[in-house]
């Protein structure tokens, strides 16, 4: 457990020394969501209807933007090999790196989403559901994305390939995440959608670090 916390602390410290990388993804999220009203037109009824989908797709893409950085720097300078050789299990260290990635790339999106939701005329209760859904969904995105990042480590055209591998796997999270807000607006209650998101998150917490570790070992061979 100490190893996990040490990894989280190290990655957060490294990110704080290079703030611009983290902030780029956050600003990307803000800009992409602001582009949609400009492209579609300012009718509040339409914007309110498509808001959950837009915010979720933007969150998906913003998470994707940060994924190549997850292991690349450590792979280049050899830190990753040292991690694989270290006495504490690689799975735990990888879990720490994923947690740090979520704190840097996922959590800011969750905190920003209510503000951006106001732009789309969502009411207070819908904003609460949106934030809850993103709180459950963004860790899921980081966990699944880590598998793709590990698989494409050091591969030609890794960034585009990563999108091709990871985006189809993100679709269930998108459906239930955006669906939760839509169901709430339609008066159906978001409980079912949020429960399914939480179930997928529980599955991913268990399996994703393990699959990521296996993929990293292959990349390090």
């Amino acid at each position, binding site marked *: 457990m100490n190893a996990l916390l040490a990894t989280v602390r190290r990655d957060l410290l490294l990110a704080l020394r290079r703030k611009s990388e983290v902030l780029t993804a956050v600003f990307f999220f803000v800009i992409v969501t602001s582009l949609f009203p400009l492209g579609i037109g300012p009718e509040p009824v339409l914007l309110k209807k498509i808001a959950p989908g837009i915010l979720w797709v933007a969150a998906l893409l913003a998470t994707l933007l940060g994924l190549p950085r997850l292991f690349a720097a450590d792979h280049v300078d050899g830190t990753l090999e040292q991690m694989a050789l270290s006495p504490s299990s690689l799975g735990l260290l990888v879990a720490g790196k994923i947690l740090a990635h979520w704190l840097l790339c996922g959590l800011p999106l969750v905190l920003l989403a209510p503000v951006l939701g106001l732009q789309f005329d969502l009411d207070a209760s819908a904003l609460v559901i949106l934030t809850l859904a993103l709180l459950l969904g963004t860790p899921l995105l980081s966990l699944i994305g880590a598998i793709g990042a590990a698989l*494409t480590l050091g*591969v030609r*055209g890794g960034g585009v390939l990563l999108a*091709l591998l990871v985006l*189809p796997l993100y*679709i269930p999270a998108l459906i239930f995440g955006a669906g939760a807000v839509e169901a709430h607006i339609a008066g159906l209650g978001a409980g079912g959608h949020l429960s399914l998101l939480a179930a997928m998150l529980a599955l991913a917490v268990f399996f994703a670090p393990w*699959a990521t570790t296996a*993929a990293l070992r*292959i990349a390090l061979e």
Partner: protein
Amino acid sequence: MNQSIIQWFKFGSPQAFYPLAGRMIPWFWAAAAAFGIAGLWISFFVAPTDAQQGEGYRIIFVHVPASWMSMFIYLVMAFWAGLGLALNTRLSGMMAQSLAPTGALMAALSLWTGALWGKPMWGAWWVWDARLTSELILFFLYLGFMALQAAIDDPRRADKAGAILALVGVVNIPIIYFSVKWWNTLHQGSTINLTKAPSMAHTMLWGMLLMALCFWMYSIAVALTRVRAIILERERHTDWVKHAVE
């Protein structure tokens, strides 16, 4: 007893499997042709015209088997991928690699025939229904698998990385299957039900099953042909390949 186990594992070596695959391929082609002729005959001449959908429904004799095969091939691919990771056999990765293009073809065929069927029946080429969407996701998964394998130069690393991706993607197969129950939308429910008597005419069912067998045999024949090419390509530095090609 040990004798028989050794006999089977012998074919895990590409060198032993290459001639075996060569001997099996004509049989699978013959089976595919036989099932195909019988299936097409039933589906075009024997099966009655559907009361509601007219003659247009006959496209399901291609559409349904293609959908089944696209999902089934992904499972088989994941099985070989998992076997390759567990036992570290070279042939398993080659099998997974040879199955992927056929699976992608089946998924594309299923989407295409589905669109042709949807236009007269629903009045739209495409609707955002659960089963169509999950078939599309499956198609994307095949593309991702092939792209990942193509991007990695070292074939052994490509096999292993693809194997992990296939095993992660196999989570998608139950989602496809249960999607009908999860989101109940425009697509008609599954017509074939194991617990109830099928709600379609028996001749239609026979036509569909025969066509599914035809697609199945075709997929095996094509995958074996492709795996022979992959074996030759990867083992080209060995002596036996030089003799085999001569």
